[in-house]
């Protein structure tokens, strides 16, 4: 896996920031959501792509992150940026707890257990005992932050840049994780868990920690999403969200750090494209396009681009 040279990464970041000064607030909102989804999918990539543990319930972590931010901002007046570290800690803790029983489950069973988690999430959010915090079925309205220091930016511009900055940090952390020794252990477990154990890797601890890390990533994405959308409610976090994140993962590229970005674009924009094509059955168009992607690019966009690059850039023998 070739890593991006630092100058290229900086350039990419600058390029990604320029829309803040070029496009309308509405488009910026959409791009902000692309970043949010990318980070969410990145979390999923860590546990599913790199560690081989299939999770169909990451929407639950996204929801937790979103609600943590919403509750802190609305009930306790915590500034938006300060909610992120709290959200990270809470989601990592929950991810660790979820990861514990997940250890004993493999493949299919884990997939279906996480699916059950995703289905149960809205009901949990509505539970009357928590209503005082979660707002129950009515949800919580989150006020969009204004740019700090009186900068001459619109709220949407500032939010996009803020989200982009946080997203960049998350991607940097992920890239380092994946390329380092931890990443090697994580991938070894995915490829051959028995052999990995034989080499001295504590498979159980590593798997649980990966789950925790991935929950943290997706949770932070949820927090950013809550700020951008301005509203959280149980209906925002149905099982459909978990499925959508999963779709973003397989389309973008499962075991790739760059893949989630493509995935984010896909899930942010494809429903609109599908609706343009067919008002009557947009879901069918979405399904057809999804299947086409799976056909043509079974390793996702990142995988496809990767093999293209390999064919084009021939290494010296």
């Amino acid at each position, binding site marked *: 896996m070739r890593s991006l040279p630092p100058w290229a990464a900086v350039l990419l970041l600058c390029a990604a920031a320029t829309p803040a000064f070029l496009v309308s607030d509405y488009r910026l909102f959409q791009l902000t959501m692309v970043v949010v989804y990318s980070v969410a999918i990145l979390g999923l990539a860590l546990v*599913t792509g790199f560690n081989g543990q*299939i999770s169909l319930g990451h929407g639950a972590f996204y929801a937790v992150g979103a609600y943590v931010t919403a509750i802190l901002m609305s009930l306790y007046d915590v500034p938006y940026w300060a909610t992120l570290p709290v959200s990270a800690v809470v989601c990592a803790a929950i991810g660790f707890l979820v990861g514990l*029983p997940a250890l*004993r*489950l*493999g493949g*299919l*069973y884990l*997939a*279906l*257990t996480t*699916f*059950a*988690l995703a*289905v*149960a999430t809205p*009901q*949990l959010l*509505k*539970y*009357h005992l928590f209503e005082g915090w979660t707002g129950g079925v009515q949800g919580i309205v989150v006020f969009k932050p204004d740019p700090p220091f009186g900068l001459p930016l619109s709220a949407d511009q500032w939010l996009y840049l803020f989200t982009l900055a946080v997203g960049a940090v998350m991607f940097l952390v992920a890239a380092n994780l994946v390329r380092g020794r931890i990443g090697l252990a994580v991938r070894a477990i995915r490829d051959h868990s*028995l052999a990995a154990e*034989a080499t001295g890797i504590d498979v159980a601890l590593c798997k649980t920690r990966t789950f925790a890390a991935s929950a943290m990533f997706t949770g932070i994405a949820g927090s950013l999403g809550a700020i951008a959308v301005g509203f959280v409610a149980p209906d925002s976090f149905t099982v459909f969200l978990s*499925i959508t994140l*999963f*779709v973003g*993962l*397989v*389309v973008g590229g*499962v075991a790739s750090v760059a893949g989630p970005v493509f995935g984010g674009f896909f899930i942010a924009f494809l429903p609109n494209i599908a609706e343009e094509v067919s008002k*009557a*059955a*947009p*879901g*069918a*168009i*979405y*399904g*057809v396009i*999804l*299947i086409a*992607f*799976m*056909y043509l690019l*079974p*390793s996702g966009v990142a995988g496809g681009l990767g093999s293209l690059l390999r064919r084009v850039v021939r290494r010296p023998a």
Partner: protein
Amino acid sequence: MTEFLHQVLSGIASGGIYASVALALVMIFQATHHVNFAQGEMAMFSTYIALALIQAGVPYWGAFAITVAASMVIGAAIQRVLLTPMAGSPVLASVGVFIGLLLIFNSVAGWLFTYQLKQFPSPFEGPPVLGGFVTRHDLGSTAVTLAVLSLVYTFFRFTNLGLAMRASAYNPASSRLMGIRVDRMLSLGWGLAAAIGAVAGMMIAPVVFLDPNMMSGVLLYAFAGALLGGISNPLGAVAGGFAIGVIENLAGAYLVGNELKLTLALVIIVVVLTVKPAGLFGKSVVSRV
């Protein structure tokens, strides 16, 4: 006490719904080692086909038979056309295809048949029995589910074809060497699963009423039932389905209230699988290093 009995009976009735869909999931898993997330939507679509036939004047059992046959063909065709080319692709890409299928079936059903609720006839009409807590349809559909179960069980356990199918799923390479047409087994597996799903749909629709989103609630409980009983074991899956129905009912009525039923399903799944990862009746597969 009577209320308790009623809850149990009513749980068995809903459990029958989950059990019938769980059977389809077991079939597809035994044949392909994949779980088709679109199974529920395909079953729903088959039910609409049946309704169209009945509304066109075809008598019930005729429509039933035609629908089962048609579903078999559709299932096999989907496997042949869509999934064979995916054979070499990563597992997750197949899951992507299943999700795509789920969206397509759901959306097309809504477009063709509208989202309006529709009534689906039951072949077991008549006054309720057992003091009104079990309807004839509940009894009839449970009988149908058990009949399908025995067919599936016999098929896998006692026929060569069933053995060949299971072998193809476990070890395609060796199976080919034994002379088994693996691709045919896969198509057959999909066809049978679709057929079982169609039967399940036609037994469920009279109870829950037919609309494109009919199966979305059922699927989770059916999965839970199949997992609990052991996804490789038709008997276990059916038992799991019935068990889930009863547990959900009792828990909802007496323990946690309806506001936490789904959470309870999740907890049950986690607890059972932590204690017995292959399911209550499943066999643990030991892999050698």
